[in-house]
């Protein structure tokens, strides 16, 4: 098990990343709290060392996505909620940002994952393929379809 110092460091470095992934999947505050803690618990229990900070971050992203997916397997949580249900602190997001995030969170998991990783985290399709353990071409396809879907949702505004 990792030390308290390592736990604090991981929270300081990756809390926002994990929270954003939770945001895309979960809108109930108690679910977010459970998953957030669960992801970092898995981190301190993971006894292998990471090759680099980038490797560590990619590991946490994959764990966060998988943990959220597992949570959603529950029948009660399969319905995607509106981001209006979200926690008070996130309600301060501007209306246009809120609408965009709402559309992204409504996308199927595979599409919202690639949108987040590509447009926010700045990973390439090849890097995303490694993180999600998928074929490169699969990621290209998902990215393309995710863009199309989001464009349609946003009333035809192109996404580059």
């Amino acid at each position, binding site marked *: 098990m990792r030390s308290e110092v390592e736990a604090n460091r991981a929270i300081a470095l990756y*809390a926002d990343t994990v*929270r954003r992934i939770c945001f895309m999947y979960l809108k109930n505050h108690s679910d977010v709290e459970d998953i957030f803690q669960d992801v970092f618990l898995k981190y301190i229990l993971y006894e292998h060392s990471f090759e680099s900070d980038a490797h560590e971050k990619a590991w946490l992203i994959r764990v966060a996505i998988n943990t959220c997916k597992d949570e959603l397997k529950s029948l009660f949580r399969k319905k995607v909620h509106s981001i209006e249900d979200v926690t008070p602190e996130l309600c301060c*997001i501007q209306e246009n*940002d809120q609408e965009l995030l709402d559309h*992204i969170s409504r996308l199927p998991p595979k599409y919202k994952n690639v949108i987040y990783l590509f447009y926010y985290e700045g990973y390439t399709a090849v890097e995303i393929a490694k993180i999600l353990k998928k074929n490169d071409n699969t990621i290209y396809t998902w990215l393309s379809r995710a863009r199309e879907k989001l464009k349609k949702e946003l009333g035809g505004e192109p996404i580059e």
Partner: protein
Amino acid sequence: MNNMIHNAFDKIHAEDALKQKTADFLHERIRQQNVKRKNPHLRIVAAFASFALLFIIGGISHNLYFTPSAYVDIDVNPSIELVVNRFGRVIKAEPYNDDGAAILEDISVRHISYDAAVDTLIDAMVSNGYLNQDGLLSVSVQTNDGERKSSMLGILQSAIDNSLQEHHTNAATDVFPVSEDIRTHAHKNHMTPAMYLAISELQQLDPTVNFEDCQKHTLKELKQMIQDHNGQHHNKNHNEGKRAY
């Protein structure tokens, strides 16, 4: 649009309360784990100590249970010795002749009380025709605890009387205490104290008899031989009352 997505996600941050709560949760888990890790030797030592204690208690109990404390020798012919522990349980049943071995082949009297064992043996002896109406049942008790000796004699006499009554048998009974010395000498000659005493008594009356020849006779026959000698030389009747050797 690229920037819009980036800017929108950039507005999402982990709440301070969430981070603090998670840090507290993780710290607690780490502390719990550290406590467990700090005392692995203590746990192993405790486990070994418990095991050792159980082993010692088990050993002492085993030793107490299987230490002979009294000996009950039964002679009808068959001849059998019961080794009794301090709890009054039979820990060993030893035959002194073939008939005794035959009886013990069919029944087990181990781990039951000595009076119940005697009752069981009387049942078997009556059933197998060894003890009949004109038979003689001799039972000797040897223990170094004087108080216990008296108690055992009373319990055995009562158990024998009840058992014979149940079988409607009027066989003569002789329940008596013997010393450790007598029992040791009897065992050296591979016989019960009753047989040993009878042969010794006979030898005093007739020095020509020897143990080997006398062992072929039943106790009742030996008693008769003693009675005959007494009648010839002293004109005394044999007394089958309680005696102590």
